């Protein structure tokens, strides 16, 4: 099944701005002007959201996060957003850029259409606290429910728990999750009422269900056999498209579905 073509999933055109070959070799980095259109929200001032445009001159090597930094540090200090490592590992700065969920620190401005304003807004489906910051608590509540930790019933070994390369490879893809919530907040089923466990919780359950060292796979399958569990997945592939780590999220969800079926039927 191919993803439904929405702003969420339509492929972003290739880089709009050609950087000369010498860039990165110490030569001068070209600059260009962009308009960053940020969806602002401050409940202390108004209950309404508003779009604010910022005209910026940015370098060819800059990312959306650099543009946000420039706004916060040089134009408007009241702009609020989360970021921690700024290198695509901590998962703090997932946001909706030009209608698609991605990490601001992994999205190069030159890869976006700089002729039009670049829209930046908070991820959807979670309560916005201020500007680009959402309350992640509902997201982590689902994450905690699937027990994202090793449960082993046997005696504690005196040495490490051994595992073959094949056994490790079985769940390798789902170990890459950085809990940025780009997948869960791109899921239309999650947008409806926030009841669905969401792709991220299922991916992290998958990571333990298919781990040969873990003994609580059955418990996790039982948790995800809920009416708000894996069966609410409509395989729209929004999560797979959104994942900044390239995890095959929809496939992982389908594998969990199959595991529940083969255990029960």
């Amino acid at each position, binding site marked *: 099944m191919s993803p439904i073509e929405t702003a969420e999933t339509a492929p972003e055109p290739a880089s709009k701005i050609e950087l000369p070959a010498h860039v990165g070799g110490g030569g001068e980095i070209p600059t260009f002007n962009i308009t960053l259109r940020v969806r602002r929200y401050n409940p202390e001032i108004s209950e309404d959201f508003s779009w604010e445009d910022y005209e910026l001159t940015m370098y060819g090597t800059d990312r959306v996060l650099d543009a946000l930094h420039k706004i916060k540090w040089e134009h408007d200090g009241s702009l609020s957003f989360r970021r921690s490592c700024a290198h695509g590992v901590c998962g703090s700065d997932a946001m909706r850029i030009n209608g698609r969920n991605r990490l601001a620190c992994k999205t190069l401005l030159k890869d976006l259409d700089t002729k039009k304003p670049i829209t930046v807004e908070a991820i959807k489906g979670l309560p916005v606290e201020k500007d680009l910051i959402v309350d992640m*608590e*509902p997201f982590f509540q689902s994450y905690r429910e699937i027990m994202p930790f090793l449960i082993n019933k046997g005696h504690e070994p005196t040495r490490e728990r051994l595992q073959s390369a094949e056994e490790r490879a079985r769940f390798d893809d789902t170990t890459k999750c950085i809990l940025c919530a780009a997948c869960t907040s791109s899921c239309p089923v999650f947008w409806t*009422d926030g009841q669905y466990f969401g792709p991220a919780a299922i991916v992290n359950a998958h990571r333990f269900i298919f781990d040969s060292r873990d003994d609580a796979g059955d418990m996790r399958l039982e948790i995800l056999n*809920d009416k708000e569990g894996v*069966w*609410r997945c409509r395989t729209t592939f929004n999560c797979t498209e959104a994942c900044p780590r390239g995890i095959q999220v929809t496939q992982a969800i389908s594998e969990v579905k199959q595991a529940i079926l083969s255990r029960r039927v």
Partner: protein
Amino acid sequence: MATPIIDAPRSGKIDVKYNRSKGGKGSFEMVAWLFMRLSGVVLVVLIFGHLFVNLMVGDGVHAIDFGFVAGKWASPFWQIWDLLMLWLAMLHGTNGVRTIINDYAERNGTRMALKTVLYVATVVIIVLGTLVIFTFDPCPAGAVTDLPSFCTAR
């Protein structure tokens, strides 16, 4: 203007709508998911078989009239075929609309109302259709006019 009170971060207070409602256990959703796949496969065979026999075989679409339908339902084979098609298509479609309601209605009250309408419509159509298939009589006793030509005159 009074400044609204905003909870401190990580105060543990989350919008109640995110608290998962209890009582969702059991395997109903799993069975429904499985039924959609299996009935879908069976329906592809049933519906294309139905279309082929009605529209392609013999005189094709021109052969369809009251007598054609009466002739088909005189055979238990087509009775069972149409019954299966009716039940599977209705349940498959109803479950599909049920999922759409669950996905798009945001309030539990709206969901309940829409699903009640859906289930009533489903039951009425299934019962009516099943009755028609099994009680259909092209030559009812006592009727004198408008009988098809194949009915032996009484």
